[in-house]
C-alpha cells in the first residue's frame, strides 16, 4: 500500500516534466530528422532519402562554416577558461570588499544580450579602432572586421568578453568550496603558493572544469546572435558560423529539408564532442 502511494507521488512529479521534455525536445528532434529526409521548402515536402546528407559532403560553404566554428570553439574555450579561472583566482584573494565590486564588474557583460554586445563591439572595432589607428598611426588597428582574420578575432574577443565573467562565477563557487585545512596542511608541509595551486586547488577544481568546459564548448558551437550582430557573415561569408549557415539555408534559400539535415549533423557533432569532453573530465574528478 505504502509503496504504491510512493510510486504515485513519484510519477505525479515526474510526468509533467517528462511531457514537456517530450513535446519540446524529443518530438521536434524526431520531426526534424524526418524533415531532413525530404526536400521540404516549408510548404511542400517530398521524401528524398539521404540525398540531403550526400549533398552536404560537397557543400563548400557548410564545410567551411563548420571548420570555422570548430576553430572558433577551440580558441574560445581555452581562452575563456584561462581568463575565467584567472579572474576567479584574483577576486578570491583576501582584498576586502573590493573583490565583490570586481566580481560584479567582470560578470556584467554577461547580462547584456548578444545582439547588443555585437553592435557595441562593432562600433568599437570599426569606428573606435579606426580612430586609434588615425591618432597613433598603428596599422594594427586598421580595417577591423574587413578581413577574415580580424573578423575571426573580433568574434573571439566579444565572446570572451561575454562569457569570461560567467565562467568566473562558476570557478569562484568551486574555489570557495575547497576546504581551508587542505591548503593549510599543504603550507605546513612546506608548499609554496605555486605548488598549492597546481597540486591542491587545481585537482580539486576538476568538477568545475567539467561544467565550465561543457558550457563554453556548447555555447561556442551554437553561437548565432553575436555572429549576426557583429559581422553577419561578412566579409564575403568568411565569418558565417554554422548556426547562421543553417538559418540562412532555411530562411533565405527556403531549403528547409536541407537545412534540417545540416542541423542534424551539427547536433550530432556537438553532442559527440560535448559528451566526450564530459566523459573525459569527469574521470579526472576527485571525491573527498
Amino acid at each position, binding site marked *: 500500500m505504502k509503496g504504491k502511494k510512493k510510486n504515485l507521488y513519484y510519477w505525479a512529479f515526474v510526468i509533467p516534466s517528462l511531457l514537456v*521534455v517530450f513535446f*519540446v*525536445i524529443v518530438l*521536434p*528532434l524526431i520531426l*526534424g530528422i524526418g524533415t531532413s529526409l525530404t526536400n521540404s*521548402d*516549408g*510548404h511542400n515536402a517530398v521524401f528524398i532519402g539521404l540525398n540531403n546528407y550526400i549533398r552536404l559532403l560537397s557543400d563548400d*560553404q557548410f564545410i567551411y562554416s563548420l571548420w570555422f566554428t570548430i576553430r572558433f570553439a577551440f580558441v574560445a574555450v581555452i581562452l575563456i577558461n584561462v581568463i575565467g579561472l584567472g579572474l576567479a583566482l584574483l577576486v578570491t584573494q583576501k582584498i576586502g570588499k573590493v573583490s565583490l565590486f570586481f566580481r560584479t564588474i567582470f560578470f556584467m557583460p554577461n547580462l547584456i544580450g548578444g545582439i547588443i554586445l555585437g553592435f557595441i563591439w562593432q562600433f568599437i572595432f*570599426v569606428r573606435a579602432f579606426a580612430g586609434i589607428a588615425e591618432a597613433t598611426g598603428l596599422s594594427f588597428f586598421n*580595417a*577591423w*572586421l*574587413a*578581413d577574415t582574420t580580424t573578423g575571426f578575432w573580433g568574434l573571439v574577443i566579444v565572446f570572451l568578453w561575454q562569457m569570461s565573467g560567467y565562467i568566473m562565477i562558476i570557478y569562484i563557487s*568551486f574555489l570557495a*568550496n575547497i576546504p581551508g585545512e587542505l591548503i593549510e596542511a599543504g603550507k605546513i608541509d612546506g608548499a609554496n603558493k605555486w605548488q598549492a595551486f597546481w597540486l591542491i586547488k587545481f585537482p580539486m577544481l576538476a*568538477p568545475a572544469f*567539467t*561544467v565550465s568546459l*561543457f*558550457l563554453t564548448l*556548447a555555447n561556442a*558551437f*551554437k553561437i*548565432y546572435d553575436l555572429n549576426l550582430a557583429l559581422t*553577419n*557573415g*561578412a*566579409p*564575403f*561569408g*568568411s565569418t558565417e558560423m554554422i*548556426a547562421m549557415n*543553417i*538559418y*540562412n*539555408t*532555411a*530562411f*533565405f*534559400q*527556403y*531549403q*528547409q529539408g536541407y*537545412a*534540417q539535415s*545540416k*542541423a*542534424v549533423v*551539427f*547536433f550530432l557533432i*556537438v*553532442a559527440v564532442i*560535448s559528451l566526450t569532453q*564530459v566523459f573525459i573530465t569527469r574521470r579526472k*574528478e576527485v*571525491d*573527498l
Partner: protein
Amino acid sequence: MKKSMLFSLLAVPLALYGCGTGGNEGGQTPSEDGQNEGGTSGEAVTVDFFNQKPEITAQLEELAEMYNEQSENNADVMITTVGSGEGSAALQARFSSGDEPALMMLNGLPEIERYSDSLVDVSEMEVAGTVIDGLLEGGTINGTQLGIPLNIEGFGLMYNKELFEQAGVDPDSIESYDDFVDAVETLDSQKEELGIEEVFGFSGGENYIANQFSANFTSPEFNHSILDAYSAEELTWEYGDQMQKYTDLINEYNVQPILTVDYSRSVEELFVNDQVAMVHQGVWIVPTLNEIDPDFAQEKLGILPVYGESDTEGKIPAGSPWYIGVNGNLDEAVVAEAQNFIDWMYTSEEGQEMILGDLAFIPAQEGYDPEDISDPVSRQIYEAMLAGETSAFVHNQYPSGWFQQELYPEFQSYLNGEQSWEAFEENTSQAFSEMR
C-alpha cells in the same frame, strides 16, 4: 559528495538544454507580439495585415483605424509588423502554425509563388484597374494576378546638389559614363575645399545594396522585364563589364574600408552631413534625411541614373518592391473585407491623402498629379515611371537566397581584391543556375 551533487544538478538541465537547442537550430523563428489583441465583439471581421516595412507601421495603423471607424461591417483591421529581413521567415512560421494573416506584403515573384496556392486573384479588384502599366506583372504567376503593388520605389546614385554646385559640376550635363567619371574626378580633386571625406559613401557592408546595385546591370540582360528575370534560367552577366567599371570607380573613390561601411554610416552620418557627395541608395532614405535635416531632401537631394546598358544609356531602376497578397484560405467574409480595405486604401480620398502625405509613397497608381508628390526625387521617379523610362526591379526576382548567400559575399570578395572579376561572374552565374 556535495560537489558531485551540485554538478549533476547543474548538468542535467544543461545537457537537456544543449540537446534541445542543438536539434532545433534550423527551426527557430523570431516571435511576434501583440497579434491577437483584436476580437472585440463576436461579429467583428478581423483582418490581419502582415507588414514587412517597420518604417510605415504607425501610418498603416492609423489607416486601419480610420477604416475600422467608417466600416459598416464592423471590420477590425490589425497590423502585424516583422521587418529587417526577418519578415519572410516569420510569415512562413505564421503559415506553418496555422495562424495565417489575411493580407500580407510579399517581396517579389519568388515569394509570391511560394504562397500562390493560398493567394486569390486580385484582377477584379477596383484598385487593380488603376495600377500603372507593367507593375501588375510583378505580382503575376502563370497569368494570374496575385498581388497589388504597394508603392513605387526607385534607386540610383543619389547625390548632394550643393556639393556638386560648389565643385562646379552640373548634374544635368552628365549624359554618359565618361561625363560621370569626369564629374567624379572633379569632385575628388576638390575634396579639401568641399570638406568631403571621399566622393562615394557606398555601403559595402549591406547585402541589399549589393543586390540593388546589381539590378542596374542585370535589368538590360532581362530586357527590363520582371517576368523575364523571374523565368530566367541563367544569368550570363551580359552587361558585367559596365558593372565592373562602376565597381572599380566607386571602390577607388570610396570611404575605406568599404566593407565596413554600413547603411547608417553611409546615409545618416556621411551623406546627410555633406561628407560624401554620392551614395547608392533609393527614395526610402528621404524620411530619414528629413528627420535629420528637414531641408536636405527638398534642396540638396538629386538622383543620377547608372549607365548600365551602355556608356550612353542611363536608367533609374524603379518598381514596386512589395506586393500585397490576399489570403484565400480564410473565411469568405474576411477575404472580402481584406480586399475592401485595400481598395479603400488606394481609391478613397482619405486613403490617397495618406499615401501622398504621411506615408510619402510614390504611388503605384496612375492619376496622381506629380506636383502633389512632396520631394523632387520621388517626383522625378514617378514621372519617369509614367513615361516608361525606368529599368525594372529585377533584383527581387533572383532565386531565393542568391543575393545573400552568393552575390553579396562574392561581390565583397571582389571589392577586397580577393578574387578577379571573371571569378565573380563565374561563381555567381553558376550559383544562379543551380539555385533557380
